[in-house]
């Protein structure tokens, strides 16, 4: 527990200092995306890693956040901060209402139902042209403004996005070490036993589904206001799968793992730039190989490595004594 907080402080320092290392430009832009993806992966991890409930439609909450915020601020001229709040509340309520019937389903059926929901939302984005601009997208979304600062450059956006991402991570770490986090993990391990202990599994699952959707919606709103342009293509089934990939690769139930997963998947297309189009093949392989051979993800792998390295010291001492 203490280690998580220590790690968080170190992580925060690295995040704050990182831009000095990359003097602005293209890479900084990648880091902005990484921040958004980290938020999304952490949000999904609360549901998938802690409560053990899969969602293959999380890109839709991200998209709904982006479109609510984008449309209200662009078409109707609301203040972007206000639209972010409205988006969060609206998506939260929607997810809460949807959560009751959808989380009654388990396993494969839950996966298919969330997937279906995601596709319906995606189709709506494409078809309500008058509202969303349809497949050609919505442009001219205003930037956020705080006091005298207008968030319009990569460096400013970097700090904006990452402060949200860091807060998301901190709150999630808090949650993980609380009675709510324990109850969620208990549901994951044995839903029956958790209910016998008095955990209202059904309600708690719905609550965490809604919380996860709210964080995704805020990430969507931030995305819309920093990019100034959104189109349905960013919120389709493929992105939902990408989010699940981030969480799995990073490690189920590990907040820092989610960052690792998000970082890897944000960098991958950049790294594979030379061999364009290979990224989809690599995703597929990663998903299969990780699930088969490293079910606890990168975070679990690192932890195992850590444990393997440490007893070696003890082992060496034992050996010397013997």
């Amino acid at each position, binding site marked *: 527990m203490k280690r998580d907080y220590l790690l968080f402080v170190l992580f925060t320092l690295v995040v704050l200092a990182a831009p000095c290392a990359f003097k602005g430009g293209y890479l900084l832009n990648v880091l902005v995306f990484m921040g958004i993806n980290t938020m999304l992966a952490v949000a999904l991890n609360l549901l998938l890693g802690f409560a053990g409930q899969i969602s293959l439609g999380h890109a839709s909450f991200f998209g709904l956040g982006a479109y609510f915020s984008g449309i209200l601020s662009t078409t109707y001229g609301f203040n972007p901060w206000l639209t972010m709040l409205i988006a969060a509340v609206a998506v939260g309520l929607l997810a809460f209402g949807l959560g009751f*019937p*959808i989380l009654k389903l388990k396993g494969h059926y839950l*996966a*298919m*139902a969330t997937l279906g929901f995601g596709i319906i939302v995606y189709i709506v984005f494409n*078809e309500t042209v008058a509202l969303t601009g349809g497949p050609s997208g919505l442009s001219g979304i205003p930037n956020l403004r705080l006091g005298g600062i207008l968030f319009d450059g990569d460096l400013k956006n970097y700090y904006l996005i990452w402060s949200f991402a860091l807060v998301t991570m901190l709150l999630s770490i808090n949650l993980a070490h609380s009675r709510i986090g324990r109850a969620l993990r208990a549901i994951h391990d044995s839903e029956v036993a958790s209910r016998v202990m008095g955990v209202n599994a059904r309600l708690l699952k719905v609550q965490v589904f809604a919380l996860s959707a709210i964080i995704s919606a805020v990430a969507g709103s931030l995305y819309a206001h920093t990019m100034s342009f959104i189109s349905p293509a960013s919120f389709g089934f493929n992105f939902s799968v990408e989010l699940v990939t981030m969480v799995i690769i990073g490690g189920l139930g590990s907040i820092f793992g989610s960052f690792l997963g998000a970082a890897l998947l944000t960098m991958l297309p950049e790294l594979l730039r030379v061999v364009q189009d290979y990224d989809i093949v690599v995703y*597929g392989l990663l998903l*299969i190989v990780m699930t*088969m051979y490293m079910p606890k993800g990168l975070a679990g792998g690192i932890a195992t490595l850590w444990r393997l390295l440490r007893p070696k010291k003890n082992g060496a001492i034992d050996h010397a004594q013997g």
Partner: protein
Amino acid sequence: MDLLQQLTQYAFSGLSTGAIYALIGLGFAIIYNATGIINFAQGEFVMLGGMLTYFFQTVVKFPAVPAMLLAVMTATALGAAFERLTIRPLKRPTPLSLVIITIGGSIFIRGISMLIWGKDTHSLPPFSGSEPLTLAGATIMPQHLWIFGITLMVIAANKFFFYFTISGKAMRACSFNRTAASLVGIDVRKMVLLSFAISSAMGAMAGIIIAPLTMTSYDVGVMLGLKGFCAAIIGGMSSGFGTVLGGLLLGLLESFGAGLISSGYKDAIAFIILLLILFIRPQGLFSKAQTERV
């Protein structure tokens, strides 16, 4: 064209796509019943059916029938390999890990197909001419008849296999009770492998017979697979006949919905039905309620 003719037209095209959904849905149900797995990669084998036929027929220049046979055989082999390499080695399979692995497989197959055949859409020649026939005032392509015929044949073969052959009966035994099946000497692992092979073959056939109508490309598998799953859900996963009805119903609803309401929302119809059924009647429309055992 008057309204009646138009409706007949919708009905024909709805029934033919519905037949395709039924075939794909049966593939889902076969694997699910043998293993409890929903194979998210099912749609990719449909895509492979179409693309492999295109490859053998247009690129390698084989005649149509050998090309199709080769395509089905290749897809079947790939389906079996998929099970052997990814599902079987899994030490502690959970629903979550199986969902992820089959999704991973789906993405991988799609990615490789894109690398091999590119992103272009390819067309296949119809099986027998493109001269439309007129039936009950509506025009119908010969390919539609092929679809009906082949679907009926596959369903009949399917029925025969499951009820009149030893392997088929063994697979049914596995679906009732795997432990009991293995106790009476049925090789459950072989049956799982067989279920993947059969459902890949059926998926590939579906892909081949629809390709001349809709064209094919590396990414057609996702939607077709999901629609097939809807059909299976409507039918309640277990009942073969229910899945066929589910597929036809879905095809008709889509076709009429697209024609009479809005074509843009055509794809949404399947998913709205999927959600409604999962929420209200998860055991499907055509099967009796089962009590869940703790």
